[in-house]
């Protein structure tokens, strides 16, 4: 049973795609005259070595959080492209809460997290309402709503909430103690635990609850679940609120960790939303797969920087790797479907 699973995983198209990506990446490296072994070694030691692991886990926190935010609606076939907007609204709300809450610091942290989640959720629900009541496809409504949210946060950070005397578009730093507890003196915070707990909750919901079952069936055949009485609009609202809450949580975690303030652009610049979306798509929104894919991308992102520093191979190579893996997997998404159709009524 266990052996079956291992050999199944080895033969899975994901393993194949990753290996093919690594191989083609190696060819690229050889073509540019670099040593592929050294480059890959630099990626791995850079990301997983003592110096890099903290950075990798911090990146993984954001990537996994966003991947979950996108995977959860994707499981039901819904695509939330408004991750950036929900993320920065969560961040700026957490920053405002952190700056102005009259509560003691630990409670303020909790409040800031909750407020960030609420802001992200509310904004995602707005996109869902646009689909449910105005007929604007979620893909469009979520994406377009994202831009004004990012701009609003940017305005707040540049004008009303701007740190006096600073030349940077950032808010004041949060008061002492208003921060997520970190592990040792690393940048890894309790945020990672929260996000992993969210992944666990997602896994549990997906595998063992009635609503998780309905979400999966809706993703596999929306007409089938509607026929059986799953209310599509209500489901869209619920999934989008959870999705937005997670994106808001990632924003709040970003503000409540170093640099302990909202810096305009700092949440969106690393592209967590898109890396997260890629990870979710890669795993077909399956909970465990999303977790693994997020970590994989975090390793590539951090390791790529290290590789650039130590081997002069540009970090864009890791993006090439990512792209190749995705192309291979996208091809996989077609093939099993065809094979299944062929097998239909075959016996």
């Amino acid at each position: 049973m266990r052996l079956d699973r291992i050999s199944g995983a080895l033969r899975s198209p994901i393993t194949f795609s990753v290996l093919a990506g690594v191989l083609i990446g190696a060819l690229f490296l050889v073509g540019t005259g670099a040593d592929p072994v050294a480059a890959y070694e630099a990626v791995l030691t850079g990301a997983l070595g003592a110096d890099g692991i903290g950075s990798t886990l911090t990146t993984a926190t954001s990537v996994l959080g966003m991947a979950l935010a996108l995977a959860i609606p994707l499981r039901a076939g819904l695509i939330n492209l408004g991750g950036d907007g929900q993320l920065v609204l969560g961040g700026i709300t957490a920053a405002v809460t952190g700056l102005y809450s009259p509560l003691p610091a630990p409670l303020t942290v909790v409040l800031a997290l909750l407020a960030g989640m609420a802001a992200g959720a509310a904004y995602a629900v707005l996109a869902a309402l646009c689909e449910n009541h105005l007929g604007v496809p979620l893909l469009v409504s979520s994406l377009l709503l994202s831009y004004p949210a990012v701009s609003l946060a940017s305005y707040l950070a540049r004008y009303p909430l701007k740190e006096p005397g600073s030349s940077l578009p950032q808010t004041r730093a949060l008061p002492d103690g208003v921060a997520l507890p970190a592990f040792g003196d690393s940048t890894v915070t309790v945020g990672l635990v929260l996000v992993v707990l969210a992944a666990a909750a997602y896994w549990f919901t997906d595998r063992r609850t009635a609503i998780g079952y309905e979400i999966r069936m809706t993703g596999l055949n929306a007409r089938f679940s509607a026929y059986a009485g799953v209310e599509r609009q209500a489901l869209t609202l619920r999934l989008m609120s959870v999705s937005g809450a997670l994106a808001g949580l990632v924003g709040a975690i970003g503000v409540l960790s170093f640099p302990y303030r909202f810096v305009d652009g700092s949440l969106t610049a690393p592209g967590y939303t898109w890396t997260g979306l890629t990870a979710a798509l890669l795993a077909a929104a399956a909970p465990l797969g999303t977790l693994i894919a997020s970590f994989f991308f975090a390793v590539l992102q951090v390791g790529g920087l290290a590789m650039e520093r130590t081997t002069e191979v540009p970090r864009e190579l890791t993006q090439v790797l990512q792209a190749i893996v995705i192309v291979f997997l996208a091809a996989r998404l077609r093939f099993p479907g065809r094979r299944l159709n062929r097998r239909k009524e075959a016996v």
Partner: protein
Amino acid sequence: MTPPRADAEGAGVVEGSDGVAVELRGITKRFPGTLANDAVDLTVRRGEIHALMGENGAGKSTLMSVLYGMERADAGSVIIDGREVAFASPSDAMAAGLGMVHQSFKLFDSLSVAENVVYAAEPRRFGLVDLAAARRRVRELAEEHGLSVDPDARVGDLPVGLRQRVEILKLLHRGARTLILDEPTAVLTPAEADALFAVLKSLAAEGRTVILVTHKLREVLEGSDRVTVLRDGRVVARLVTAETSADQIAAAITGRAVELDRIHAPGTAGEPVLEVAGLSTDAVRDVHLSVRAGEIVGIAGVAGNGQSELVQALAGLRATTAGRVTLRGGDITHASATERRAKGLAYVPEDRHAVGTAPAASVADNLAMGHHRTSLSSRGLLPPAAVRAHAKRLVERFGIKTSSPEVPASALSGGNLQKLLIGRELAHDAPVLLVEQPTRGVDIGAIQTIHDQLIAYRDAGHAVLLVSAELSEIRGLADRVLVMYEGRVAASYTKDEADERTLGLAMAGGDTRTQVKAAD
């Protein structure tokens, strides 16, 4: 029937095959765990209508997949017009003059009839698709073959019966010389089926060849020239239609004697449980009907006369514009599908792939749908063990053939998928069951099982509303028969009155005896 000659393979051209359009020799195809085709020989002469029969899983679909280039045989050869071929894909088969209408249609729902018919063989003008010519072409073909359909209609809006016509027109447009039709009359009424066979016969008379994969004995007897019967992957009978009988074919198919077209004894009706008063929705006008506990009410009608819309409205999947629906005394006119199910309604929809199941999900997950909020879960938790146990129970109880409940439902044959669907809905034990086309495309053995199950369900005191295009099914099962014509209930008959001729006439709009008012 000439036996295949083993010595006949020369330089591509096979000797001794004059007048033979399609010949399959020794086709063997193995799937993991099954031998789907075991050295099957099939000879189809040019200009004949050749019926290929057998139960679900007998190997018909596999054989046709091999012929049509969708599967590669492990052994054996395919000879078309005397030339041995090796199709790598259906495109190769089409290029060789074959054309196939699949049981689940391959159409673009969002495109028009004309666009669908000319797809991949579009008339062009200045390098662009000439839609006007496409529309003309469709009109010509439709007229020529008596398959009238509006070239501008959106395919997704058409009832299943008309979509079938589009599929057939598509083949005719491509000029296929050999047409393979998989269950072509499954959704047609006798009159429409007769019209289709007139078309097929005229095509055969022109020298085209028709291979008919079907479960329906009557149309095979009336419309085909020869019959090949498969069972368990082997040819068990090659018959000349004129010299055989329904019983002989049925015995060959099942391997035992079968009671055909059985008329079940009427049930004992109790109180009305489903009452519909003046219901109107898209394509349905002012329908009144009631179904009592312990009875089956059959709705007959030519496809596209509002039956599907009526049932969808009753199931809560289509808004009603007027009228009132009560279920066990409670008003459900504006209730959602969920609320209706909770109040005691189960529903077997017509389209088992697109609506009734999620083919990519496992058999177990498909069987759990609807039960996942009731018997299988508590406080929102749905233990995988409960889903598995439930699947095991239903697989056994309803004789669903599957290697494991974990395989995707798409791996099941059509008949087994239908058993899954009916089993799941019967297991709700709901007082009212809506059933659409319960045995469409299902083999004789499975039809008997499904009919017995519906009768047993009725006898347990449940009300059943049955919509079927199959008159023998309506007559065999229903205690009362309503005929729908142009969205209205045009006529209503008791079991004794409902003979095939009377129903056929009413379905064509002929008998308006009980219709309230024919004119405006």
